[in-house]
């Protein structure tokens, strides 16, 4: 992309309003990609072969939109006109304004989604200003737009939640009970918003260094692994054959305990994510992309030098070149 910039307070008259020439400031990879300065050998300068070019991206987007269509052609199918005998309506009288508005609306899903995004953006901006003006106010409701996928950005809640992990360090059975009592003490007072509480719970569970809030029925000792294993044996006495390797930390299978009812209630009370936030992300483990022959569907081993479509071999390539190669790229 060429960089066109409007200089803010230039006194020159605008021969062409809206844009102006700016001096070229050194090397710009974006420009170099379009008009390479050196040679025509591909792959020397541009490292981003794995990245898709914007053309390819556009082609993919267009293809996906094509797959999303209901009919191949755009058609208008109107509701069949009924002979008015008020059979459907029956006893009901006139139509309310809400109903009329909804029925006459010709909005598509796209329109509704855009409205939604605009509303959320506005909400976010007003919230920001609110937070700036009153930084001390602790009343932040778990609004929908604030909840992001924890996978992408680990959300830090502003409310400190140290109640659960703090009684950990010295854990003998007595202090554990004490900790539980403490816990119960703190329970009514901890009125942190549900979402923030839940998110810290998951981060705690992901790191697995600190287990979620202690359950009553399952006393846990972090440091004392032997006693823990004894307990496990007590829990399922007829499960495993004893061997000397049972205490090997490498062989031990760690099954995390189920979260407490309190956590589950907090999770259930969360508001739904937005439409965009619930969209699945990219794959966790990136596999190299597979290409298929555009003619027969077999592996796309060779790429057409003109249009970059793939074919499986010379046979398919000849057909492609003769009939279908668009060479638009």
């Amino acid at each position, binding site marked *: 992309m060429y960089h066109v910039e409007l200089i803010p307070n230039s006194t020159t008259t605008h021969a062409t309003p809206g844009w102006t020439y700016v001096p070229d400031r050194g090397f710009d990879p974006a420009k170099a990609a379009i008009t390479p300065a050196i040679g025509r050998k591909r792959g020397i300068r541009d490292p981003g072969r794995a990245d898709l070019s914007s053309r390819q991206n556009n082609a993919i987007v267009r293809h996906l939109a094509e797959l999303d269509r209901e009919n191949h052609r755009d058609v208008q199918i109107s509701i069949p006109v009924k002979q008015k005998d008020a059979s459907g309506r029956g006893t009901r009288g006139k139509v309310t304004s809400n109903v009329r508005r909804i029925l006459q*609306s010709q909005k598509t899903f796209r329109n509704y989604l855009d409205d939604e995004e605009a509303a959320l953006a506005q909400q976010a901006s007003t919230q920001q200003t609110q937070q700036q003006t009153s930084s001390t106010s602790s009343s932040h409701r778990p609004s929908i737009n604030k909840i992001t996928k924890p996978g992408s950005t680990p959300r830090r809640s502003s409310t400190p939640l140290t109640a659960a992990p703090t009684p950990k360090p010295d854990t003998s059975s007595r202090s554990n009970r004490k900790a539980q009592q403490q816990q119960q003490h703190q329970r009514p007072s901890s009125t942190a918003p549900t979402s923030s509480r839940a998110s810290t719970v998951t981060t705690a569970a992901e790191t697995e260094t600190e287990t979620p809030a202690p359950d009553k029925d399952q006393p846990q000792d972090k440091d004392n692994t032997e006693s823990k294993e004894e307990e496990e044996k007590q829990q399922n006495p007829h499960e495993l054959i004893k061997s000397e390797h049972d205490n090997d930390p490498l062989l031990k299978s760690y099954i995390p305990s189920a979260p407490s009812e309190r956590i589950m209630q907090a999770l259930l009370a969360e508001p739904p994510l937005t439409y965009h936030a*619930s969209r699945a992300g990219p794959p966790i483990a990136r596999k190299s992309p597979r290409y298929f022959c555009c003619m027969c569907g077999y592996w796309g081993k060779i790429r057409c030098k003109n249009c970059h479509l793939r074919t499986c071999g010379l046979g398919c390539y000849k057909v492609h070149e003769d009939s279908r190669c668009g060479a638009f790229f």
Partner: protein
Amino acid sequence: MGTTKPRPSGRASVAKVQSLPDKTFVIDNGAYTLKAGYAPDSAPPEDQSKALAACTEIPNAIVKTRGNKIYVGSQLNTHVTDWNEMMFRRPVEKGYIVNWEAQKEIWEHSFFDEKTVRSKDLRITDPEDTTLLLTEAPNALPALQKNADEIVMEEWGFGGYLRCVGPSMNAWNDVQSLFGDPIVQKANTTVSPKECLLVVDSGYSHTTVTPIYKGQPLQRAIRRLDLGGKHLTNYLKEMVSVRQYNMVDETYIMNEVKEAVCFVSNNFVGDMEQTWKGNRKRGLPDPSEGVMVDYVLPDPNAGKKGFMRPHDALLNAKKRKGGLSGASAEALSEDALVLGNERFAVPEILFTPSDIGMKQAGIPDIIMQSLSVLPTGLHPAFLANVLVVGGNALLPGFVNRLESELRQLASAECAVRVKCPQDPIRSAWLGASRFATNKDELRKVAITRQEYQEHGSSWVSRKFTGAI
């Protein structure tokens, strides 16, 4: 705009508190078909097929034939004989009811208009004495939810109403016996939900993954893949149009082809090698027999339906010979599509969306993404109870593939079980109808007509998200 007072009908009855009507009508409003029927009054019948007899599948579309005739809903199954160049108008877009003009027409045609309603089991004679249970796809837009609430309560005026997330209704089914768990004999006969269930709902417009805890969805973990049955059909249509006949206008026929021939491969590379056309030239003992099939296209003039048959490589040669010797005209007139790697490359995009350049992950990966935002303590319970519903669950091999890929991704300590109910399409309806028999639970979440009139639609939407 929010709180609009509907017309003050039934002023006399305002004084006393109304309760929910006893009859419950369940509509699982899918994009492709809507599943509807009355829930049983008391305990649901033990036999699943008997319970499903109350449920009717109605195409959720208004269609235009090439003769410019327009048909609505269930007329598609009876009135239409020529499916060529059929055009569809669907009120549900991306899984959500968007166009209420068309949806109202289909609902009236199917449930309210006494002339067109198929059977009296589907007729809603007096909405005032009926509770409507309407399902929606998860993560719906609030504006669309509000539209639905207002239309349901103000246009038809149902006596009771509940809008709920469709996949979560599956938890009320008899999932224990499906997974082969020991059934705990309960003293009471009321229906209760499964504690932990992970529902993969692969429908017409998208595929969603919903972890459900005690009948309620865990909202933060719901994930969606924007690929569904529609995309598979269109993808197959595109492939066939490039390689064989131009079928771009034949959405309906290609959908039938897809349902007949497509399968999810458990050995993608191996199947791909089998269908390579080079095998034939090399004179290998044609191993493609297994995968390669012919689909004979329907012939509306002769009133014949399309069907699948094993591929006959020598067919063309036979035809030529037969044409010379004057064989039956019938065999000569038929058109067949030869389907090889299309059969499994098409459903493959649900598992590897990058095959069509999509940035999203495949279904097994999405399940792991969904679980990653939940406490690790829940992972074993959800991985051991994965339920696949929706039309794509009918693809052969889908469940096996999902189970084997999930097994590779999940940690070794967790058991992975993936199951598909007997009828994956009507599974959500069945669960909803069982839920409706549990009147106590229903009363907790549903609203009455009186409440709507008092508080208005924005209160209702807050109630249904559980904020009140």
